[in-house]
């Protein structure tokens, strides 16, 4: 085993001396850095745009002038999804999700205005981000560096010479594996340091972000290890270097190109989503006759009003309640009714979307690319689960805002009724919108299946790599 070191040194020397491979490695690093620069610029722009838009929305809200609080609830406002700094590494599915939610009375709106709607139609051919370089190109680099590690020794006859000296096959394997790993590390460690610096500058120095990045780094190491192990095995098992190369490029194409598309296609057929119009029709129908279709809107709202008046202690006393209070309470009761309907349908929609996303991750057991891609987006906070986390917070905030306005109507309108107008002092009382990203544990929990798939792949590839040492034929 003490021979591992000289073997690794010799392999590393060979890899480094090969000009073609130096060139390929250089290209990958340059692309990664360009992607980082672009990602950082986009992230910075998105953060600024969100800040700017939020300020603007706040100004519009506070400067909307004098009006009835419920009219103000109709006027509404907008809230914007935050852009985590890790978006610079992996934008995940954020471009395909709405980034803003319109907040208004009576309606729970879907997030709207995704960036993808305005992009070129070939955007799906090649997105350009650090994660894509890591997910797609680095495995190819590993294949280019590693496909000849066993087979070239055999072809040049050096394997015979080596084994005749009595060196153990295992030592050869470890030497080769270490050399492959070091050559990739040599390229990526400096790049990773640069990534950390850039994220720090974008404001990602907090413990949670660092924890996410550490997990991300670990995940990618495992991912590269999987490709390294498979490549070593292919190099040993194939008849020639050429056959090993062709087989591994084929496997890469299957893992990274074919299976992801096929899996999402199957997932969207197995867990179909409704159209916006049919969702709207369903919601409208439920609003009239209830979710199960046997409740009249009027009666339901009436019952809610009774309940609420009872809560406030009006019903039994036979007290005379002023018109505005009734209006305010009625509005609030209506809002509760509508909220229950919207919540039901939106939960069903979100559940279906989550189910579709989950279904895709099943393909992680067939392709390490699919598993790592979803884990990467999860750890960067750019997957659907994080989006859902945000929209659920937003909905809670919407309810508290509308309640606050209806309460202001009920409490202050008095005899003026619908002619009552509130001013900025009420608008400024709007609850604060303080959305915080969930913890890294949240991401791991959501992507447990992908973690499991990667672990299985890692075991498989480790086993194959170990076998490769025995498998390789001498002549």
């Amino acid at each position, binding site marked *: 085993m003490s021979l591992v070191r000289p073997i690794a040194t010799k392999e590393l020397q060979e890899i480094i001396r090969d000009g073609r491979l130096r060139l390929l490695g250089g290209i990958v690093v340059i692309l990664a850095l360009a992607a980082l620069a672009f990602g950082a610029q986009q992230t910075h722009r998105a953060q600024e745009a969100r800040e700017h838009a939020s300020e603007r929305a706040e100004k519009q809200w506070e400067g909307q002038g004098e009006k009835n609080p419920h009219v103000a609830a109709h006027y509404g406002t907008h809230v914007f999804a935050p852009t985590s700094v890790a978006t610079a590494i992996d934008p995940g599915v954020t471009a*395909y999700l709405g980034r803003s939610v319109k907040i208004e009375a009576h309606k729970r709106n879907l997030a709207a205005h995704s960036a993808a709607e305005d992009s070129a139609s070939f*955007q*799906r*051919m090649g997105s350009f981000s650090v994660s894509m370089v890591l997910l797609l190109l680095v495995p190819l680099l590993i294949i280019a560096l590693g496909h000849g590690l066993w087979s070239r020794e055999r072809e040049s006859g050096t394997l015979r010479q080596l084994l005749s000296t009595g060196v153990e096959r295992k030592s050869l394997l470890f030497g080769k594996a270490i050399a492959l790993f070091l050559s990739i590390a040599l390229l990526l460690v400096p790049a990773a340091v640069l990534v950390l610096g850039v994220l720090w500058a974008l404001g990602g120095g907090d413990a949670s972000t660092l924890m996410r990045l550490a997990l991300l780094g670990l995940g990618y190491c495992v991912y590269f290890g999987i490709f390294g192990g498979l490549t070593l095995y292919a190099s040993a098992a194939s008849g020639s270097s050429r056959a090993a190369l062709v087989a591994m490029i084929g496997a890469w194409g299957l893992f990274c*190109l074919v299976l992801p598309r096929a899996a999402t*296609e199957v*997932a969207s057929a197995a867990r179909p989503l409704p*159209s*916006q119009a049919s969702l709207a029709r369903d919601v409208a129908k439920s609003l009239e006759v209830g979710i199960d279709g046997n409740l009249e809107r009027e009666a339901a709202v009436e019952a809610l009003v009774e309940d609420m008046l009872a809560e406030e202690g009006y019903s039994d006393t036979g007290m005379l309640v002023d018109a505005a209070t009734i209006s305010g309470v009625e509005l609030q009761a209506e809002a509760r009714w509508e909220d229950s309907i919207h919540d039901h349908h939106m939960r069903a929609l979100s559940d279906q*979307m989550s189910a579709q996303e989950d279904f895709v991750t099943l393909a992680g057991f067939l392709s390490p690319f699919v598993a790592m891609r979803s884990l990467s987006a999860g750890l960067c906070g750019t997957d659907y689960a994080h989006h859902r986390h945000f929209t659920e917070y937003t909905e809670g905030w919407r309810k508290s805002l509308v309640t606050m306005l209806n309460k202001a109507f009920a409490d202050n309108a008095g005899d003026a009724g619908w002619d009552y107008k509130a001013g900025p002092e009420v608008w400024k009382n709007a609850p604060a919108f303080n959305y915080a990203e969930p913890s890294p544990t949240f991401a791991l929990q959501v992507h447990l299946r992908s973690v499991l798939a990667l672990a299985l792949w890692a075991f498989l590839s480790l086993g194959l790599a170990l076998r490769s040492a025995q498998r390789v034929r001498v002549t």
Partner: protein
Amino acid sequence: MSTFRTVLQLEWRILKRDRSALAVLGIFALFLILAALAGGHQANSLANGIERTQSEEATRYAQLAIRLSELEKSETPLSAEDPRDSVWMGAVGSARVASLPPAPLASIAIGQRDLHPQSVRVTSEVHLTRERETETPMAGPTRLRTGAFDPAFLFVILFPLVVIALSYELLSGERERGTLAMLLSQPVSQSELVMGKATARLSALSGATLLFAVLGLVVAGADLGAPGALLALCLYAGVLIMWAVFWFAAAILVNSQGGTSAKNALVLVGMWLILVIIVPGLVNVGVDTLHPPPSSIDLLHEAREATQDVEKELNGLAGRHDVDPGSGETAQRIAVVQEELARRAEPVHQEVSAQIAKRQSLLDSLRFLSPAILVQLALEDVAGSGGARHQRFEAQADAFHDAYRAFFSERIQKGVRMGTADLQAVPRFIHEEEASGALLQRIFTAMGALLAAAAGLMLWARRGLGRIGRLTR
């Protein structure tokens, strides 16, 4: 010429006995059929959505006509949701659906159809943004990010790898097997040899591909008898053949440099990676950096601020539950305010359109940077899911929206009630297909560019092929 034919025939024979080549072709054919099925499924679900809305519209109009004819006789006062009330009719009752019908070969490429509405509900409301309810089924974010498993994906991304697998050892394989020296000791020039071999492989591949492409269309349920289908089919075949020619030319160039088969494979896969994956990504990045897409959020704010005072009035009316916004004077005032809203929002919309046009023109010129982009766009054009067709549809839908609103705002302002005749006269959306000349021009440009690129590669390869000695060793 006879040498060429001999080489061609022999190459055919070799191909027929080459199990790995047959396996590659077989796997690709299998994928192609699966992709055709997936594309057909998508195209059908889109078509079904459109059909559903249209039939919904037809039944709604029929019911309205019956109710109108009854109400016209009775002369009762207006009630809620009364078809005689032009305000309610314009906003809800007689809403029209403008749809972009799927083209005959729609299953080839989904394009941006999963992102853009294929049918929009047109009412007398003013839309500040493109936030419109559609019948297009929603798609999950990962599905959108990944893209569809449609024939266009297979052809743009995987097909070149198939060509590479069939051609990377065109000459280097003969050299490594030792047959190249035997061949070149015959009175055969290297160019004849390469051309014969490449042509045999090209024709085998094209034949198999076109066969399965057409088979795919059939299993996807495409209507090949529809008007324009035959032309589209010819263009489809033309684009695919040009795309194969381009990659064979690249393989000939790489082979003419005299490297080993393994090196040729690496170089060709590298070329593929650059042209098919990296350059399109960089073009996306370049366009996004130079001309960022107009921010819909900013647009929303601009429009909101430009119209704030008017909207205040509108909301002052719309949010009050004690007045019915659907009738009488309030309705007339809402109509007037809506007009004003549309007028004020107009400059913002125009600015956005100008921004989008600038992006589009930059994209139009950058697409020549990668033949893969050309092919993707050409296939989308053939499938009727291209950007140009959709933009035309959007423009037509906007014009129709204006006509629809004008029809109702005239009646609302005059306080006219709707009658059966008026219901008949509500504008109807008829999608006007682009003249085939423009489509032909776009696709021929793409095919011409591919051919020119292939010719350039071949010219370059000629220099290497002239130097015989280097290749035999």
